[in-house]
């Protein structure tokens, strides 16, 4: 036997001391119309909220198609957290190493118009390793300890500076004087602080990323993306959007998925401008290096590369962006789909009206159309017939059946017994957060526990 479409196992939801839902089991087979009934405050809406990720269940599982609705723990998540940790760790490292002094040691230590990247990298390495370094100040070369507190030598040429630097390194490796020992000690302490800051940042970032992931394992969005759509008991439309816009908002998820499918080269396209940018900067550097006296030529090269880069950006934006011709095509399709859906629920005469100007019954229908636009497999309806007159109720029953006939599975909460008994394949009864009965409409109608719950026990008996 295949797994049911929706399977809720021992779901419990507690708010402080109040148990809203207690160990409820629920199964909805694909293609069915199922209903949850029960007196007010029985925990029906709370159950819906737990299924759709609005409330985090205290315990229990919700499965769709046999798979937990919580995002599973995957090895690649570890990698993601580690990357965040690495980033935070680097921030910690840079803070501990003092990025300001690093800058002074790497960038300011050389003549800006005769800058060697190799030299800069070497300086950066020496600084990070808390080794002695050479600073250029007032046309003299200062050989100092990593923190600048000890000056080993002041010389006039780079060659002499190199020798002095080697001397200083030797002195520190094999310290003879108290001063040297102190300097070496400071260097070691600084390295320890840096390593500590890096590791602390690494751990913190890792844990933080994990904590955020844990909180968002099941969100309304992730549940919706898995194919569960819903309506709300107290209609929650986007009131100041038009009817058709309400539906379009919901179909965007579908649109994006389609766009992804039809665009295999997406990543490279977005990376290309970044690469071009890097190229621009590199080119500017290269020209400066190659022909320092041709400063006049530099701007032309930069300008050329820049225009090229801008052009690439524009192409990417026009081709792939939110307002591209491709997306205009999608928009047209989405619009015609939305109008088709609105016809299906009977709102085709209202397309351009603001949602808040619709009468109550039509607002309920619009909410259903909006939910359908996400192309769900399972549709949850929270009291769809509330506030409807008898004729509206009848056409609602037709609509729900038509939705089922389109291949969707429907789970509804309803007080209106004629609706429930008329269209449901299976009914679950909740009382005080507990499931007291489950069965076909006929079984439920004759179940003594249900009758008792609805009519109350006659105390005189």
């Amino acid at each position, binding site marked *: 036997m295949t797994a049911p479409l929706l399977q809720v196992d021992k779901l419990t939801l507690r708010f402080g001391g109040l148990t809203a839902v207690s160990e409820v089991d629920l199964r909805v087979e694909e293609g069915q119309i199922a209903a949850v009934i029960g007196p007010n405050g029985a925990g029906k809406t709370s159950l819906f909220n737990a299924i759709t990720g*609005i409330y985090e269940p205290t315990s229990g599982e919700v499965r769709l198609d046999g798979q937990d609705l919580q995002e599973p723990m995957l090895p690649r998540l570890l990698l993601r957290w580690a990357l965040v940790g690495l980033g935070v760790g680097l921030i910690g490292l840079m803070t501990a190493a003092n990025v300001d002094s690093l800058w002074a040691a790497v960038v300011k230590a050389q003549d800006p118009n005769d800058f060697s990247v190799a030299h800069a990298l070497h300086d950066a390495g020496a600084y990070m390793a808390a080794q002695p370094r050479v600073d250029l100040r007032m046309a003299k070369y200062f050989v100092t300890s990593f923190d600048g507190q000890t000056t080993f030598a002041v010389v006039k040429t780079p060659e002499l500076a190199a020798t002095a630097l080697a001397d200083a390194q030797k002195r520190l490796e094999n310290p003879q004087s108290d001063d040297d020992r102190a300097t070496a000690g400071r260097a070691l302490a600084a390295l320890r602080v840096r390593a500590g800051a890096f590791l602390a940042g690494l751990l913190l970032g890792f844990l*933080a990323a994990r904590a955020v992931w844990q*909180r968002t394992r099941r969100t309304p969005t992730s549940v919706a993306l898995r194919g569960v759509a819903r309506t709300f008991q107290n209609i929650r439309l986007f009131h100041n959007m038009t009817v058709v816009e309400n539906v379009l908002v919901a179909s965007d998820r579908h649109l994006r998925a389609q766009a992804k499918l039809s665009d295999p080269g997406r990543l490279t396209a977005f990376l290309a401008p970044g690469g071009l940018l890097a190229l621009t900067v590199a080119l500017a550097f290269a020209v400066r290096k190659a022909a320092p006296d041709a400063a006049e030529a530099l701007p032309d090269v930069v300008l050329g590369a820049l225009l090229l880069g801008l052009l690439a950006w524009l192409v990417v934006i026009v081709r792939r962006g939110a307002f591209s011709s491709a997306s205009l095509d999608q928009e047209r399709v989405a619009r015609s789909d939305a109008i088709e859906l609105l016809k299906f629920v009977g709102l085709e005469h209202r397309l351009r009206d603001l949602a808040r100007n619709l009468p109550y019954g039509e607002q309920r229908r619009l909410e259903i159309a909006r939910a359908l636009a996400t192309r769900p497999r399972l549709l949850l309806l929270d009291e769809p017939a509330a506030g409807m007159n008898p004729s509206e109720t009848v056409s609602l029953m037709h609509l729900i059946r038509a939705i089922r006939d389109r291949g969707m599975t429907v789970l509804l909460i309803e007080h209106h017994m004629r609706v429930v008994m008329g269209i449901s394949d299976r009914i679950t009864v909740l009382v005080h957060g507990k499931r007291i009965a489950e069965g076909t409409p006929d079984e439920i109608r004759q179940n003594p526990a249900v009758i008792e719950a609805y009519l109350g026990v006659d105390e005189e008996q």
Partner: protein
Amino acid sequence: MLDTVLQQLLIGLTNGMVFALVALGYTMVYGILEFINFAHGDVFMLSAFVALTLCGALGLTEQSSAGALIGGLLLCIAASSVFGGLLNLAIDRVVYKPLRKAPKLAPLVSAIGVSFILQNVGLFWGGMSMKVFGGGGQAAAPKAFPNLLPATNLLGATSHVTLQPKDVLVIGASLFVMVGLYGIVQFTKLGKAMRATAQDPSAARLMGIDVDQVVAATFLIGGALAGFASVIYSLYINTVHYQMGYQNGLYAFTAAVVGGIGNIPGAVLGGLLLGLVRAFSDQFIGAQWQPAVLFGILIVILVFRPAGLLGSTAREKV
């Protein structure tokens, strides 16, 4: 080393107490109205100006007699608290109250506006031609608040840890006020009404609670706390400045968020935590990085506990 740690603990505690007092005003208003009263820090600042003006008018200096000092101080505290409370209440009545049902952004933006107006008033106040304001020639400059308490070390002159009468005053007075506030919130009818309103304003209204009065009382108490805090802060720091409301308000609000906004013990906890972190970061990292350190702590706490240390996750009714 131990001495340094003890000293910083003490500094952190006193600073934290002041933050906590100001944070209480933020958190109480937020708890009931769900809105950040940006002008709260500036009520604090203007109350300090009231105290300073009063000091100038009474001619209080370090050399005044003990009786005059005690009397003057009590008067300052009373005047500033009353001023703070009434100012806060007046702002609510005039500016926020008409916006109760407007979208959330409206009162918030108005509060920012009020904050600017009050800051500007502080600037002009600093231009008063009184002696305590340095004659008013330099309105924007920080003003010296007379050092009214003796600067003796209560632990003896030889101790490496300094505990001055003003430290004792800050901690003692703050504790006294906090316990008093706890008593009010926990045991009086008003306090119960406040808690009920914070939980569910419409239900509270249905239960016959005059929500309007509760809100008024909240602003009054919050403002009075800020006024009280401003006096002890000025006594402690000995400087008054028209931008002190913004700086301390920022810290106090951070404290309220760290503790869990809307939660009264949380505000105290957050204030103390922030005070301590600040003291230790000043000592071991460097005072110039103080805001960065505190901000980092705020982010870390919010990432791990989005509702603050003691706050509970708000559950939206669906």
